[in-house]
């Protein structure tokens, strides 16, 4: 994809901290209106990538463009007028009340905070107490209102729902969906995989500083395959494993049960299993959670 028709364009981004390479040759682009989930284990380089996109840190090499303009720490602010940013561990200005903070952030981001009241009604944050006295969840609500209040074209969210209770997470996801419907582009990192799969159309999976998966949610689901659990006596199980069809992955035997993943035509499996004396068969679709779970575990 060319940088011109991308909201976010990252090309060969490398970020080193001394001898440690936190982000290693990362490239991706986010189109207008896309909702992209950015997932990966702790220390994968997600926050470093987001910090580079926001211009908080300078790339060691590579290019980042937002709205077609190159990002550098000195001129990153020119893009921020169109961006709503929040992070789970974001530090707010502790000596202000929630209301003062929202006014301050709106004044610094310039456009009118037209959605402020609507967001306050939806998230119900505590606004009249000093931020330093608020719980993490309430601080996060204030931060979310500040990020969304000016109708940004791009939302950059780094673990946005950490600290929110499940009910508030749902309210927040509804707000994000509403933003997306109105044309906002969303780039969101998260550890909560159900959250990513419920709202994102595309997923970037990052591990050890590299993007190891960049795919649409539907493609991932299509390639996910099936999980098959077969119960039989031990002798039959040994026979099964000797004759299994192509596409059988990660067989794990436990007592009289064997569990494996399968990618391939389901008829071949049915024929294979029918030729043995099995007691029970369970076949189910693998969900994204289990796919990501495997990816988290791989190479640990």
């Amino acid at each position, binding site marked *: 994809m060319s940088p011109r028709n991308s909201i976010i364009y990252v090309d060969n981004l490398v970020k080193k901290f001394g001898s440690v390479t936190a982000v290693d040759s990362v490239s991706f682009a986010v189109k207008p209106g896309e909702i992209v989930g950015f997932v990966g284990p702790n220390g994968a380089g997600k926050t470093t990538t987001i910090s580079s996109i926001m211009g908080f840190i300078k790339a060691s090499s590579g290019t980042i463009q937002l709205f077609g303009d190159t990002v550098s720490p000195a001129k990153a602010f020119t893009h921020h007028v169109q961006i709503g940013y929040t992070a789970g561990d974001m530090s707010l200005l502790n000596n202000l009340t929630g209301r003062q903070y929202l006014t*301050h952030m709106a004044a610094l981001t310039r456009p009118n905070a037209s959605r402020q009241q609507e967001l306050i009604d939806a998230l119900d944050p505590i606004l009249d107490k000093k931020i330093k006295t608020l719980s993490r969840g309430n601080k996060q609500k204030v931060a979310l209102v500040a990020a969304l209040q000016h109708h940004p074209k791009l939302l950059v969210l780094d673990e946005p729902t950490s600290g929110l209770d499940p009910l508030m997470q749902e309210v927040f996801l509804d707000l994000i969906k509403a933003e997306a419907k109105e044309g906002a582009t969303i780039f969101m990192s998260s550890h909560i995989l159900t959250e990513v799969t419920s709202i994102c159309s595309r997923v970037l999976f990052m591990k050890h500083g590299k993007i190891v998966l960049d795919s649409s949610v539907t493609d991932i689901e299509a390639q996910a395959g099936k999980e098959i659990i077969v119960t039989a006596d031990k002798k039959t199980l040994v026979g099964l494993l000797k004759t299994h069809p192509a596409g059988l992955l990660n067989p794990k035997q436990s007592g009289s049960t064997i569990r494996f993943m399968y990618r391939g035509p389901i008829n071949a499996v049915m024929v294979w299993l029918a030729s043995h004396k099995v007691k029970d068969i369970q076949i189910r679709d693998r969900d994204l959670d289990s796919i990501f779970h495997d990816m988290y575990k791989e190479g640990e």
Partner: protein
Amino acid sequence: MFMKSILARTLYDKRWFALGWSFALSGMAVLMITMYPSLHDGMKSIAATMPPQLQGLVGDISMFGHLDTYLSSQLYDIRIPLFLMIMALVLALSLSTSSEERGEMRTLLSTATSRTSLFIQTMIAAMIIFAVTISSTILVTILTVPMINESIDILLVFKLATLSFIFAMMMFAIVYSIGIGTGSRSLVMSIGVGLIVVSIILEAGRTVDWLDLAQKVSLLHYYDASKLLTDGLNFKHLAVQIGLLVIMPLAGWLRFRNRDIA
């Protein structure tokens, strides 16, 4: 109103800080002025017996003869600049590395505020805080002097205030620029505390001949309140202070524009 800009919000945030330091410096001024009548008599006899080497610790004893010279040498030449150095270090730390460590700088830079704007507004906020603190001290000085049946040259007081302001801003500019340019609290602390300690030691040893060359390292060397009445303004020293006041922020800003924010 206070939430419309970083400058206004910083002033709002630091209002108790400014008030506290204003009270501290004003209180010290009141104390020094009200002590003057009794010190004036006692110091005459001490001056006759004190070795000149010890005078570095308390200032020139002969300066106790008049209120003008007493205030220039005892209040504005030693105590006020010392307090202002400490105040500048605390303020600079709070507005640079502490703000960054707390993550507040990152939050502000996530808005449409440029690093240059953040830098300039913070410098202006510091200027206003020092102006308020020093003005209140000056005002208290002018109001307290008549209470001990003395008078003071108002022009001298304003000159002392201007010198104090430039000195405070120079110290702030040095430590703030290091803080904002590097983000390193330990570097700011070691340089800031080092400057204060070295300045105090060298000031105390200013009558020691072999420390003459080293005096140039002391910031207090360039602050000439006690010599204002006798020698007038030392433009060379003033130029050094203004030079540092310009060069250090420029270097800090250039580094801050492109460095990583924690």
